[in-house]
């Protein structure tokens, strides 16, 4: 009975979608605001990657809210998992040790992946990538160590401090922009420099480095909580 209802609902939604999409041609639409960002993004923010100039230039306040959502989700996950853990006997974890090849490979690859993640978020205003991608790459490096080396754990205070300090850097940069640079939160107060060089685009690299460290430590914390739960 439920499947029949579900299929009818799917058919109705699919018909509506086909009807709507027949009026949106593929590959020709372009919004006015997108064209404005492409035309004047380099002059306004100094970043040559226009996606970065939208994420941390024009809509940086939006990004602050989004990082906050990520933070709240990480806290909620930790709280939900910790609430069930207290009144339950501690079972001894029975991990079988990883093979030598896996162990050595993880230890060899870990600094290289960290370096790649840092490269991705430091060069976010020049090349594809940025804080979110770099943070995810860093978190996947820690995930690899957790799976390959088994006993190794990141220190909780270290991760928490990294996260708090990078969040603070984001907000303090925005407030300094409000006080010194212009009339709005997160306005640029540093020189924009030459286009296509590493030291350019004002505050964008600082904010993206802060976002990268924050996202990386938050996702690592999420994985850490879940793995601790599964032991």
């Amino acid at each position, binding site marked *: 009975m439920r499947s029949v209802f579900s299929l009818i609902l799917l058919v109705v939604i699919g018909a509506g979608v086909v009807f709507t999409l027949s009026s949106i041609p593929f590959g020709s639409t372009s919004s006015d605001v997108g064209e404005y960002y492409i035309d004047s993004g380099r002059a306004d923010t100094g970043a040559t990657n226009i996606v970065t100039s939208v994420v941390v230039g024009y809509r940086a306040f939006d990004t602050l809210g989004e990082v906050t959502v990520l933070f709240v989700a990480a806290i909620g996950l930790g709280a939900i998992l910790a609430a069930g853990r207290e009144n339950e006997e501690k079972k001894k974890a029975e991990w079988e040790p990883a093979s030598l090849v896996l162990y050595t490979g993880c230890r060899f690859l870990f600094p290289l992946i960290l370096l790649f993640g840092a490269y991705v978020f430091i060069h976010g205003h020049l090349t*594809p990538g*940025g804080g*979110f991608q770099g943070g*995810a790459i860093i978190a*996947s490096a820690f*995930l690899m160590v957790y799976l390959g080396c088994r006993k190794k754990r990141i220190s909780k205070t270290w991760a928490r401090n990294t996260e708090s300090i990078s969040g603070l850097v984001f907000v303090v940069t925005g407030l300094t922009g409000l006080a010194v640079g212009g009339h709005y939160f997160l306005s640029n107060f540093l020189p924009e420099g030459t286009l296509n060089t590493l030291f350019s685009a004002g505050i964008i690299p600082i904010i993206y480095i802060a976002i990268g460290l924050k996202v990386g430590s938050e996702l690592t914390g999420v*994985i850490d909580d*879940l793995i601790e739960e*599964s032991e």
Partner: protein
Amino acid sequence: MIIIVTLIVAIMLAAAISVVFFKDLLSAVIASCLVSLFASILFLFLQAPDVAMAEASIGAALITAIFMIALRRTRRYEE
């Protein structure tokens, strides 16, 4: 080019449909990882390298690992 894109979309949809039928949840998680991986290739074809990087590192790596850790804590087979 259009043939490659059609092939990728076909594999992606087949992997998504196979999630409905798998009784083993680990296979279902791997199939959803395949969906994310091919979606990231499609993002690259659509000239969105930033999104393709995010989807490949998050969708294909982190989400799969999180699902596997959750499966380790709960039950592997669907009853």
